């Protein structure tokens, strides 16, 4: 009889592929039929184009499409520029090491919490304008500016950028050794190139291909985000994804046909944004060919280095300012403009919220733990299979991994809901957990794969030659040796799950509320104090996860110090 290890290793890669691709594929199928009028459960029995006509006549549709398309591309371009300039200007400096340490905690901040914090910081009556008023601005009352929620989506773009910069930086850190960045940089510097020119001309051409999929994921996310757009985006009209969600939640059930068509249109918009980026990539490559070889060794190094430093400091300051704003608001009672600090601070908001917080926190934790556990099992199984067969991952598998990050969730989750309705599957906790796992698994994989693959094969050879079979090598050698990266991957997965808004909302049919769904719906209301408390709790869960992932090994392995330094 084959051992559990052997069966697990055989099954895990297929289960992972199924979890990533089946919901996306069936979700897309499930959205196409109702878009053309076919959904018997709601009385749609004939194929028709009337729902598309209705969609095209929806007021402001062109503006919605434009908003989604532009925010997607603009936030990706800004994030990438900041990351590239930062890497170029600071790769071999102490600042780089410092930022590297900040990355994981920054990445753990849920999108919604960051967006709420940013809104509280930059609003006309926000922390920034308070700290500048009235001594600098002369404002005695908050100025009458629509921000966040400005019609051009600038607040939305800013909110996306501060979350995408840490993500792209983290992906670059994994990719830099793969393209021998350090060697390339030293070589170019030795040939007389300034630091930034050396990076742009010698490292970036090798780094960019490795960053392509993460960048596409950023574009897809930014062009179709719902929670960030609900908090920071314009309202009349909103972005397309938010509009789709509104139509779906319309009490008139026949609106669901139009919502399906809208979800399909969202897919088209995201694909169009991706295609535009791809075309721009080719164009830039053509244009840059001569520039790469022109022998110029310092093209504005000082200037661009300054730009890089200010852009990165601005991102960090925005995040810190958002956090301080959240804390102050959670402690505020009466806080008239332009006072910079609430006086006196009070814990009343925290006490008042306590009664309602228990259940959403518990639900979020249960869903997060279950989705993370499922993802870890599948990812470890898939990586173990790869290790045993000594076969590198195929490019197709890489694409499947990114599938849930490239297809707009609003499109395929929506299709899953339609199928749920048609098949009569009851929405509930298990469906929501599976829905979260679709998004958690890719991040767990990306976080764990490097460590798993880099583990020196001689360890396994040694253990085998000492008489341990593959199962014993896995349980007694590989897993314990990888416990630190495993805990980090679990913390990343948990943070991703806590951040999920749409899967909880759609697959739970509004019956399951987590700290995130509560925080987002509070944010669109008017109560800043309560919203701040919820946003801080939303932030606390993943922060706790990371604290455990970093602290537990130091406690458990204090007498196994070899485990704490990377092998």
């Amino acid at each position: 009889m084959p051992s559990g290890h052997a069966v697990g290793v055989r099954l895990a890669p297929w289960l992972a592929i199924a979890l990533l691709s089946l919901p996306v594929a069936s979700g897309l199928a499930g959205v196409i039929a109702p878009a053309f009028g076919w959904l018997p459960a709601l009385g749609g029995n004939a194929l028709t184009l009337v729902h598309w006509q209705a969609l095209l006549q929806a007021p402001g549709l062109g503006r919605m499409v434009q908003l989604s398309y532009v925010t997607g591309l603009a936030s990706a371009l800004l994030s990438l520029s900041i990351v590239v300039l930062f890497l170029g200007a600071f790769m071999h400096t102490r600042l780089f090491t410092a930022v590297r340490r900040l990355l994981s905690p920054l990445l753990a901040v849920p999108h919604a919490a960051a967006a709420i914090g940013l809104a509280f910081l930059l609003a006309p009556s926000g922390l920034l304008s308070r700290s500048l008023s009235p001594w600098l601005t002369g404002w005695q009352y908050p100025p009458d500016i629509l921000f966040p929620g400005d019609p051009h989506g600038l607040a939305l773009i800013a909110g996306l950028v501060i979350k995408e910069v840490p993500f792209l930086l983290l992906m670059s850190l994994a990719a830099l050794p793969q393209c021998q960045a350090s060697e390339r940089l030293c070589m170019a510097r030795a040939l007389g190139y300034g630091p930034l020119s050396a990076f742009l001309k010698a490292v970036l051409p090798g780094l960019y291909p490795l960053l392509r999929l993460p960048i596409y994921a950023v574009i897809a996310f930014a062009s179709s985000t719902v929670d960030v757009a609900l908090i920071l985006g314009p309202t009349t009209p909103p972005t397309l994804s938010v509009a789709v969600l509104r139509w779906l939640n319309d009490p008139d059930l026949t609106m669901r046909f139009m919502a399906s068509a809208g979800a399909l249109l969202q897919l088209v918009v995201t694909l169009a944004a991706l295609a535009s980026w791809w075309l721009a990539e080719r164009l830039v490559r053509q244009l840059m060919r001569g520039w790469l070889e022109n022998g110029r060794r310092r093209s504005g190094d000082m200037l661009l280095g300054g730009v890089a430093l200010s852009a990165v400091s601005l991102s960090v300051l925005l995040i810190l300012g958002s956090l301080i704003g959240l804390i102050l608001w959670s402690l505020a009672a009466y806080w008239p403009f332009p006072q910079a600090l609430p006086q006196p601070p009070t814990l009343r908001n925290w006490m008042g919220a306590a009664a309602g917080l228990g259940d959403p926190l518990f639900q979020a934790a249960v869903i997060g733990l279950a989705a993370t556990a499922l993802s870890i099992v599948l990812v470890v199984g898939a990586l173990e299979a790869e290790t045993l067969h000594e076969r590198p991952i195929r490019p197709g598998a890489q694409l499947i991994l990114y599938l849930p990050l490239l297809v707009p969730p609003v499109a395929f989750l929506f299709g899953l809901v339609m199928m749920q309705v048609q098949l009569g599957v009851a929405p509930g906790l298990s469906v929501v957990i599976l829905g979260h796992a679709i998004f958690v698994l890719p991040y767990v994989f990306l976080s764990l794969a490097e460590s798993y693959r880099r583990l020196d094969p001689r360890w396994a050879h040694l253990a085998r030659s000492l008489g341990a079979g593959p199962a014993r090598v896995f349980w007694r050698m590989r897993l314990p040796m990888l416990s630190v990266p495993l805990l980090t991957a679990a913390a990343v997965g948990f943070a991703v799950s806590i951040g999920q808004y749409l899967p909880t909302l759609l697959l739970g049919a509004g019956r399951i509320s987590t700290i995130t769904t509560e925080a987002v719906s509070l944010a669109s209301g008017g109560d800043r104090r309560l919203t701040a408390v919820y946003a801080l709790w939303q932030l606390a869960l993943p922060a706790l996860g990371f604290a455990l992932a970093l602290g537990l090994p130091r406690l458990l392995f204090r007498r196994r110090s070899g485990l704490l330094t990377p092998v």
Partner: protein
Amino acid sequence: MDPLILDDIRIALDGAPLLGIDTVIAPGDVLTVMGPSGVGKSTLLAYIAGFLSPAFQARGRVLLGSRELTRLPAEARRVGLLFQDPLLFPHLSVGGNLAFGMAASGSRRQRRQRVAAALAEIGLEGFADRDPATLSGGQRSRVALMRVLLSSPRAMLLDEPFSKLDAALRGEMRQLVFQRIRQEGLPALMVTHDAADAEAAGGAVIELEP
């Protein structure tokens, strides 16, 4: 102990022949294989130990006496490995490292006694509960050697075992390793760059050519 027989082994990479060897190593003898980098020395060790990457094609048989190893999984071959790094498992104590390779038989107390006795043999009494990261380089190498011996191997493969030690330690470890190999009567194959290793081993030398 039985001799280690390498019966007409030929290894190729993508169809291009890499190396060939046909020899018998008597119990207690150390055969040294030398040659420049990239000639396939480590590939030969991987084939004998059972870890040849699927990128290579190999034919020929590896036998220990009359027992053929070629079709056995690595864990059933009982071929001990020593690398240039001691590779003590960081998640286990020094004693745990030694116990990892021991046969599962015996009570917990008996196993602990065997570990303690083995540590005493290499001058590390009372080190069983220590964190391997706190050991000196020489101590680690000795533990690594003892871990292999406690797994009761039938043959030894040495992959540049002394190349990372400093000069003083190197002489000491050479003496210890070769003495134990002779004492246990193990046939051994050593891959090295260093002619002094071959000299200290005192056995036959094969030069692989590119």
